[in-house]
């Protein structure tokens, strides 16, 4: 007896092949291209955002701070405690680094602020930022200028104040 009747037929119609299994996910995700901000509004915006000033070239600073792809000044506050691997959900798997993180002395953690995308005379910029922050806070502020990484690191959590300072300058 031939077995042709028991073979399962593979559907090849256009309806079946047009199924997009990721359709519902695609509808939720945001677009890949970041939109340009609306420049026809009053600045600073209610959130406090400001675009770089139009006369920035005429100021002729020796340094320059670019904006990141989200049109913001790239300021990141960091403390060692934010580096944890999430062991809340699964603590069976831990390596020596997780154990070292748990066993460290948290009073040795240093709160620190990073400013990225700095170019030009970074040392001058670091000096100015440190001067401004020392005047504000009254306590000594140490700064690190990393030229190949295009980054300035400052001890203390001064993201808001650095942003204010740079907005005043026009970046």
């Amino acid at each position: 007896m031939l077995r042709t009747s028991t073979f399962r037929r593979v559907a090849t119609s256009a309806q079946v092949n047009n199924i997009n299994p990721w359709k519902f996910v695609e509808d939720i995700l945001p677009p890949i291209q970041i939109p340009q901000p609306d420049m026809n509004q009053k600045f600073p915006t209610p959130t406090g955002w400001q675009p770089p000033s139009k006369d920035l070239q005429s100021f002729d600073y020796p340094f320059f701070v670019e904006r990141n792809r989200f049109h913001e000044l790239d300021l990141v506050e960091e403390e060692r405690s934010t580096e944890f691997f999430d062991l809340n959900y699964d603590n069976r798997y831990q390596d020596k680094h997780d154990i070292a993180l748990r066993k460290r002395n948290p009073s040795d953690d240093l709160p620190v602020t990073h400013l990225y995308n700095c170019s030009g005379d970074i040392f001058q910029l670091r000096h100015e930022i440190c001067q401004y922050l020392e005047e504000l806070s009254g306590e000594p502020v140490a700064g690190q200028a990393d030229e190949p990484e295009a980054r300035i690191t400052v001890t203390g959590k001064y993201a808001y104040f650095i942003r204010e300072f740079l907005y005043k300058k026009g970046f």
Partner: protein
Amino acid sequence: MLKSADKIRARLASSNIVWTSASGSRPGKKPFKLDVKRSDDLLRQSSQSSYSPETIPVHGVTVLESKSPVEDLFETLEIDDSESEKQTSLSEVTKISKEVLQEGIAQLHPKIWTAVVDQQAIHETLEWQNTYKTVDMSFEQSRMETGNKRWAKPWGGSGHGYERVRDKTGPYFKGGAFTDEPRRPFISNFHMIDRVTRVKALVSCLTLKFLQGDMILVSNLSNSIDSISKKLNIKREPEMSYLVLNKDNNYPIPLENWIRSKKYYNLFPVEGLNAKSLLKYDKLILDLETLEYLEKRLLFEIERFDLLESHDEPEHPLLNSYWSSIMTSWKDEKFNQGGYRSGHHRFYKDWPQSF
């Protein structure tokens, strides 16, 4: 003529100098006074410093119709010269004179052409380019493939202090005791590197090409490339290799036919641009159309935001052993690191319609 050691010692002792310079002290030389407030003021105030601050570049792609002479090429970073050929044919003379002139000025996007050069990214990308296509096909030799003579007695019988053996293939020998089927499946070294690293490397290489004066912008990709590049080759260096970029695989036919005969000119589509080729070839030749297309593609890659990639998916700690168990643990785990993470879907719906 060496001065005697006594004289030098006497001179040092009398004038109380701890160390002397090679040139010594000349009568007209004045001491260099510094008003040092910070440690880096030294660099800033010294006249020998060649450190110049970077100007703020403006981005946009415009071609001006002005015909200005070729001077002040390095005044500002954003100006680059595009040169073209001009044919001046005199009506009643058979000779046609061709001149290479600057046709205008083009502006380059600073994020691509004056980006921060990331050497770490370049190194990683080059390593990846050299190894990701390789396949480990090494195998263990069988007895017949060792090259040792069959039944070649290493030492004849007794009397030498060693055991009696017929050949050096037994388990007691280092490199011995192999089976008849010592083969194993090939292990592929395929791995992928972060897109960010690869883009940074590309952008760094393009920056190097521009800032080192190895970029040539041309109004028309055609036979005129030859005369333009020769004119720009001021030092008359022989064997200069050129990377001619075109937008697509569909090159203009006369250009393709001309370049087939040339040894040092190489045609690339923009998809074929890579860090290794950029560093290998001496000069980079671009068309204005190609420049626009290249900038568009690179800016898309630099400024894109994938929500799925924005948060770290903590990799399961057992993934490494999972990959090595699939690939069999013949070799060290480092060969199996970075097994390609499949299951990433690219959502093409919101990509631009055309680049």
